[in-house]
């Protein structure tokens, strides 16, 4: 027991006396690594690769960059404490990261209070740049609204009028559903939404949900399920013949994180957003892919792209600002342009949303694995509402 007491004492002493060592530019990173490891382990590999490349190229402003990474516990209360730790003890110049929407919003709110730049990497919620947008928060990934908008063309082309909707019952699923109904109704007169199923996240009773959808006799389905819910829904739907002759749209289902577990169960013909990593032939992606596979001997997931691009954003912002001063960084972030493996992105001055796009295509089976076919790249800038609408959504600074 003595050794444990000693260890605890040492840890406490460490908490009290740890002093920051500043010879580098410190960037604070926090994410729910233990809650969403399937997405975030590749994400971490992604940003580590980008960091290594940036420092190998001499860093920025003549200094190396150090990323201080923390697990945020997956809930807002702990995340805020972790962010405060990064700010007060580690004295980081800016924050980046977060995955679930409520954690992203809480950290964004803290960033606004403490007046520090926050680059939200992954949270999909529209609110982080619109309803609850603030001066210090910028978001990288294509939002729920944008990804839904990317699928609308497919929905319109299908010519289907009777839609069933299934979504995980929390903000992401609710927002996707609301955006889908609004956008589709605007383009297809007489469209009907015949049934809505909102299973709790991670707890779908897939058989019952599949039957309840069939019962309403729709001719198309819009789904925003992902992860275990998606896998269960696909298997039950396949067994019960739900998807025969049905047009199905599913947000995110083409992302390797969610597609790969489906293996031979992959439902062919579904229209999805995702990341067909093996087939993208742009120079910037090929370079990224080669470097990633060389370093990790593994293929990238979408999380890898998000992590990689987040550090690219930070590096570009520091370069443009020429300083680690928050106000200068915020000014630099507005309209910031840089390359990513998905091509050039711009952080819009109007709402701090990046124009990073996503790939839209159809699911198919190849050698017992799911792949995306007939895909195209949807540039994020084409899937945002008009500026006048955005201005109305976002509070004045």
């Amino acid at each position: 027991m003595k050794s444990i007491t000693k260890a605890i004492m040492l840890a406490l002493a460490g908490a009290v006396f740890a002093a920051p060592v500043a010879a580098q530019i410190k960037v604070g990173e926090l994410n729910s690594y233990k809650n969403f490891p399937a997405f975030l382990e590749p994400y971490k590999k992604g940003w580590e690769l980008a960091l290594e490349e940036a420092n190998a190229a001499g860093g920025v402003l003549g200094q190396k960059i150090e990323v201080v990474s923390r697990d945020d516990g997956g809930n807002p209360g702990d995340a805020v404490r972790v962010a405060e730790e990064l700010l007060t003890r580690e004295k980081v110049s800016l924050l980046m990261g977060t995955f679930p929407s409520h954690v992203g919003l809480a950290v964004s709110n803290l960033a606004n209070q403490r007046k520090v730049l926050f680059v939200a990497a992954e949270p999909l919620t529209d609110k982080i740049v619109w309803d609850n947008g603030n001066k210090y928060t910028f978001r990288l990934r294509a939002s729920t609204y944008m990804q839904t908008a990317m699928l609308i063309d497919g929905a319109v082309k299908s010519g289907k009028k009777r839609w069933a909707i299934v979504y995980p019952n929390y903000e992401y699923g609710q927002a996707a559903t609301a955006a889908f109904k609004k956008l589709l109704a605007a383009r297809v007169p007489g469209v009907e939404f015949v049934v809505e199923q909102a299973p709790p996240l991670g707890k779908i009773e897939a058989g019952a949900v599949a039957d309840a959808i069939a019962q309403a006799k729709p001719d198309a389905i819009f789904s925003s399920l992902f992860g275990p819910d998606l896998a269960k829904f696909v298997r039950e739907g396949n067994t019960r013949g739900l998807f025969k002759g049905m047009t199905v749209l599913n947000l995110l289902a083409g992302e390797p994180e969610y597609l790969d577990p489906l293996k031979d169960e992959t439902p062919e013909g579904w229209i999805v957003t995702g990341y067909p990593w093996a087939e993208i032939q742009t120079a910037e992606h090929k370079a990224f892919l080669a470097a990633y596979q060389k370093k990790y001997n593994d293929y990238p997931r979408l999380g890898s792209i998000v992590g990689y691009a987040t550090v690219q954003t930070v590096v570009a912002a520091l370069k443009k600002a020429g300083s680690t001063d928050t106000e200068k960084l915020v000014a630099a972030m507005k309209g910031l342009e840089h390359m990513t493996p998905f091509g050039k992105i711009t952080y819009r001055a109007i709402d701090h949303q990046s124009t990073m796009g996503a790939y839209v295509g159809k699911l198919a089976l190849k050698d017992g694995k799911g792949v995306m076919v007939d895909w195209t790249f949807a540039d994020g800038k084409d899937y945002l509402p008009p500026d006048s609408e955005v201005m109305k959504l976002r509070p004045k600074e």
Partner: protein
Amino acid sequence: MTLADITIQLLNGLAGASSLFLVAAGLSLIFGVTRIVNFAHGSLFMLGVYIAYSLTDQFGRGSPLAFWSCVLAAGVAVGVIGFVVEILLLRRIYQAPELFQLLATFGLVLVIKDVVLKLWGPEDLLGPRAPGLRGAVQVMGKSFPEYDLVLIAVGPIMLGLIWLVLNRTRWGVLVRAATQDRDMVGALGVNQAWLFTGVFALGSFLAGLGGALQVPREPAQLFLDITVISDAFVVVVVGGLGSIPGAFLAALLIGVIKAFCIGIGDVQAFGTTFSFSKFTLVVEFVVMAIVLVIRPWGLLGKPAGEPRHTAATEAPLKPLPGWLVLGFAGLGAALLVLPVFTQSYLLILLIDVFVFALFAASLHFLMGPAGMVSFGHAAYLGIGAYAAALMVLRAGIPMEATLALGPLAAALGALLFGWFVVRLSGVYLAMLTLAFAQIVWSIAFQWDGFTGGSNGLIGIWPPAWAAEKEAFYHLSLVLCAAGLLALRHIIFAPFGAILRAGRDSPLRADAIGIDLRRHQWFAFTLVGAFAGLAGVLHVFSKGSISPETLGIARSVDGLVMVLLGGVQTLTGPVVGAGVFIFLQDEIARRVEFWRAILGLVIIVLVLAFPQGIVGFLRGRFMRAAA
């Protein structure tokens, strides 16, 4: 819904109930005999899924015989794990105060989760379909999976087998006897140690088997433990503790109700739409609340006999010796002047410690002196926090006023729920608090327009005078210390004495004319207010609030803090809160697999200090002082 729709949803419900029944039966057996509230039961289920995934993926694709052998082998493997866990860990702490074993199983949950992550990786793993049962059969013109039909049969078959074991073997007779009166079984010369080991292994086997059966239906993934454990507890309690047929009935009932909620979908009535599909978020807890209010012992449970204490009864309270009073006063003074010396993160961390010390102390007041264990205490933390947040954001009420109004709101919530809660006792009481907490949670989660839904509310910061860290630190310190002292004072006051009398002997308390239920109701309301105060401070220190503050995980954190510090001490919860928060903060920063390390540290602490940390210290030093 047509008749065919109704039939198919009925079948869906029955299929979903089978594996839940197995898990719940195991949990019920373990609790009945050993009185262990096994939080790790969901983790054992998860292990069953993962092991069965690996086995069937490798060997179980060919023939039905191979597949079912793999499923059975996975169950046995989990049974062996349970066997080992009981011998190495639980057997050492049966003499600890009641519920203490819960802390050990909580440590196990953390360890198992990280071990699974390490061994199987982060991706979801969808297993193969069962050979020979890949397709669907036509039921009234609709396709229904063959495998689900088999599952429907598995439930009653396993019920029958368990019944045979319990009723037709000597071992089963002993298990039933121990469920009813384990002291008597011990007195009659039965080796309790092996009986407990056997029951724990059997319960683990059932959990593992329940998990293995799910492989063709759902992917192996890391949230299964949490998802399953609360459902399993609900089923056990709704069915009646220790009643296997009750668990079967409850599993069927909940499975079928869920399937029908999904089948019914949206219903228009009185100009609004009620979504039964969204109602599945909380339906099992609503069912549990209703059942417990109407039948306090569950559907098929019986009132338990008056339990004899296996652990030593709690010693009467004594005021602290003078040197300790001086010590605490000195500590308080040191904390007051601390900001002069450091502006660092330590202050931020200490605010969390203060808030959770108050929260844990309020829970301890219920668990210790009042003798009512709450599994849903975070509800009152959350109500206080949400009330304050809503008042600030929606009504512009200043923080100073919310410091009084937030606790008031929490107390009102506790007053309402407490009326039902104090009518029960023991684990039934604990589970009813959990049910109410989940209902409050689901309201916060679902009412987007008012509570912000799953995102919660943001932008709740203290006014200018308290916005600086130092000022807010002092505010939290003063209010939490005042709260702690008030709770302590109440415990020593006549009111506290009445509660302790009621805890130690309800019969005698009744005989001298104490209306115990009314006092317990008042105590429940009172601690609600203290938890609410902690909640208000919490929300202003974070600037935001989300439904997790009301969630099961927060309630469990509170239990862990109280037990870690020592439930039979008054300073225990404060020490427990401090140790838990510092440990979590330090370990999470230093190591990748922090959950496993935290779990191991908790297990080591459990083995080293079966009376809790403060209980241990008191045992060492007070005896020396006396």
